[in-house]
């Protein structure tokens, strides 16, 4: 496990300097789009209170929730004297506690995410980081608690919980410092991350899910009462690879090789498999009432965010 500072020292994506990486990833254009998202989100969530998420937890809020019998030690100011006069019982008023929503942003940092797209196209990893930055920004705007992590064989990058709009720069700094490494083990990573107590919240997992386990380990989140948003990010090379007739494909994560003989309908079969792969994840999400987004790294990140907001996946 490494912290954000350690991650920043190993940045391998693009320029070696984290600050240069940050400028490249989150430049003026990014913030311009972010502001547009902010305005859009205000329109979409108008009427709701910032940071006011109803909670089952009883606390110091102002909304009445319930009564309970008085026990020794309870503050007298919470005793409902009117009820005492009526029922001759000491009842204590309980109020709903106003809580912030934990937003867990998990990014696949395996080698497969670093795939180089065609000239001019955005790499999957960069696209994913921008998407997470945007979600984090909106969450911070909403006074939610944002927890960022990057995973590969396990959780390899962590960022402490952040709250408040002014923490966006730490988010961007963390994301800019991330790099890709080794292979993916989603199950280990989730066990690693959710091994410690986590308050139920929104879990956003961004990955290409192009590994042996696929998206099936996410199923383990079902018992943790989280809302889960699964984002599969593929680039053009993943969706419609152009390979020679007879070629030997090498897995960049595992180094495994496969010999592909000439096959007339190879492109069509591969396209079917890509669609089936998405269907597998979609079926898993639907079974747990989760959201699934199949994103193309060649698209703009803000379009994806707007689509998420319009579909309600980013509103609570």
């Amino acid at each position: 496990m490494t912290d954000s500072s350690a991650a920043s020292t190993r940045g391998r994506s693009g320029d070696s300097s984290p600050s240069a990486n940050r400028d490249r990833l989150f430049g003026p254009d990014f913030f311009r789009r972010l502001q547009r998202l902010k305005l859009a989100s205000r329109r979409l969530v108008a009427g709701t209170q910032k940071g006011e998420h109803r909670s089952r937890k009883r606390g110091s809020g102002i909304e009445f929730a319930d009564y309970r019998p008085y026990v020794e030690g309870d503050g007298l100011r919470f005793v409902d004297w009117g009820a005492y006069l009526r029922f001759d019982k000491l009842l204590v008023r309980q109020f709903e506690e106003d809580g912030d929503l934990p937003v867990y942003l998990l990014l696949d940092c395996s080698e497969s995410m670093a795939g180089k797209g065609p000239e001019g196209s955005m790499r999957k990893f960069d696209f994913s980081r921008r998407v997470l930055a945007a979600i984090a920004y909106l969450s911070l705007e909403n006074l939610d608690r944002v927890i960022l992590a990057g995973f590969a064989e396990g959780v390899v990058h962590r960022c402490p919980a952040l709250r408040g709009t002014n923490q966006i720069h730490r988010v961007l700094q963390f994301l800019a410092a991330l790099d890709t490494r080794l292979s993916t083990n989603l199950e280990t990573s989730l066990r690693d991350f959710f091994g410690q107590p986590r308050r139920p919240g929104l879990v956003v997992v961004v990955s290409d899910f192009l590994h042996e386990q696929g998206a099936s380990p996410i199923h383990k989140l079902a018992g943790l009462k989280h809302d889960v948003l699964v984002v599969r990010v593929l680039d053009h090379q993943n969706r419609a690879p152009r390979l020679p007739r007879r070629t030997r494909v090498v897995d960049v994560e595992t180094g495994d090789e496969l010999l592909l003989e000439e096959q007339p309908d190879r492109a069509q079969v591969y396209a079917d498999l890509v669609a089936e792969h998405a269907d597998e994840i979609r079926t898993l999400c639907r079974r747990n009432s989760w959201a699934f987004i199949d994103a193309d790294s060649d698209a703009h990140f803000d379009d994806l965010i707007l689509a998420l907001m319009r579909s309600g996946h980013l509103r609570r």
Partner: protein
Amino acid sequence: MIWLGAAAVAVVLLYLLRPPARRFAVPSTLLWQRLLERTRKRRRWLRWLLSLLLSLLFVLLLVATLFRLEPRFGAVADPVILIDNTGSMGTRLAADPEMTRLDRARSLARTLLDQSSGAITVADLAGTFGPTTFQSLDEAARAIDRIQWRPGLDARLPNLFLRSTEQEQRAVYLLTDRPASWAGPDERTAAATRRSVPLGANWTLVDLSEDAHNIGFITLSSTHSQPGTLGAPAPSAFIELLNGGNQTQTTRLVVDVLTPDQLTRGAPQPARLLERDLEIAPRATWTGALDLSRAYALVEQRSPGQRVVLRASIEPGNADQQPADDVAWLVLDAGPLTIDGSRRTEVRRWPRWLTRVLETSGRLRVNTRATPGAVRILPNAPQGSDESDPAPCLALAYDGEPQEIAVDDVTLRLPGQPPVALPWTAVALRSAADAATIDPSSAWLRAQPSTAEAASIALVSAPDSESGREPGCVQWHFDPTVAHLETRPEFPALVESILLSVGARSTATTASGPERWIGDRWSSTSPDDPNPGANLMRDAEGLRATAPLGAPITLVATGAFTGQTDPPVIPRITPEEVARRAGSPWPRRSLLLVALAALLLFEAGTRFAGWTE
């Protein structure tokens, strides 16, 4: 096999030398792995299917081999096989004298049976067998073997008793050596005459005719003096040889003098009068005179007082092995001829089938230009002098002034029937006497096919510029070897008239250069003419008087036909084509081995080499 092996080696080398697969880095091989698995599943299914098909093929071939089953690809359903078994089909084949044309027809018919299926109808053209329909190929084959040769020219298409739908649907094969007699005229002639034949488009003529040499004697006669010469009469022989074929023939003419003993006992060496190699152009006649004084001298020296036989022969002679024109006999009385001497002439060109006819000499009538009654048929000479040849001979006796004698025609008269002209070749043509035997109601003139050439020549139409006749007429130039014009009752209503012509050509120009007609006589006849050919006879007489001695006289018949349009073109195929259609016998064992090898190779490849893994 060498080429096959080299090709296999080349394929293996190309496979081994193919460029290595390029390495290509991909984010993940997960989907590619799934793609390969899916492809393997499909290939496994294909392998299972291929293996099943190969196994089934192998089992089928095994069963076919064990039970001797023959495939019948493209079999002709319900064919009709008609076999010409009339006289000329008894001709022996030039390539294989052991076989006759009928034998070959039977063989080809069996080949056709191998390509057939369903009900097979078999019939002959002599009217002695069929039409009979067989459901079994074996029964049909046995029936074909039972068809026997029938002498004579009386070939008739049998009534097949086919329903109207069957007449156009069933394939009919007619195996004959006289395709020209059945297939109808060529397109040009057909167009000019608008003539048709009742053979449908589903008929196929299997042409069994051969390009025979068709060379033989047309005249061997003796005279006591050369025509036109003065002085003391000298015995001489007049010889005419005709090449009726399409190619120049080289032959050796041998003339021997034999005594009766030599004839009957095969005495050692005959006295040879002449031995000469001749080259005769197509359709040309060679004529020659032979001084017989030396022959008589030999006779006087060896066997005085005996009669001798003059035998002229050519080698090679007729390839069609017919009762031949390649030997001619002339019996000479011993000693110098006297004015009132008696001579006897034997002509050996008599078909075998006249044996019984000749037993009754009273039915024969011989017309000559000699003094009436001077030539008579010898009643006791039905057989030839050569005992080795059972062919009957016609023996004519002449008692009269020494002169050239030509037999104009020989007509057979049977009680209650019209006279039948016997197929008398040269003599009849010399006088064109057969013209008198042409039935004017016939629409079809058929030549006696002593060879195929004669039959085909008979159907060659003359150019319009030569004929000079009105459109719609057609001419056939009959080769002098064509001896007989036969009627075809199948076409009774198609003829308007027949115009017969007799012409003579200059013998000097027949070998090369254009023919020069030195005389032309025409005579027309019609179906209503009570005495057809009478005018022609008279014209022939006049022409003969002006033509040089030995000049061949050509009979030209012109017929005008009406009524029919769009004659069907009857396909004609050769025996070789029939055999080629049948193909080679199905190599069951070879196919079985190939299928087994393919199955084993496939199984080994899929199991050990991982072709489909």
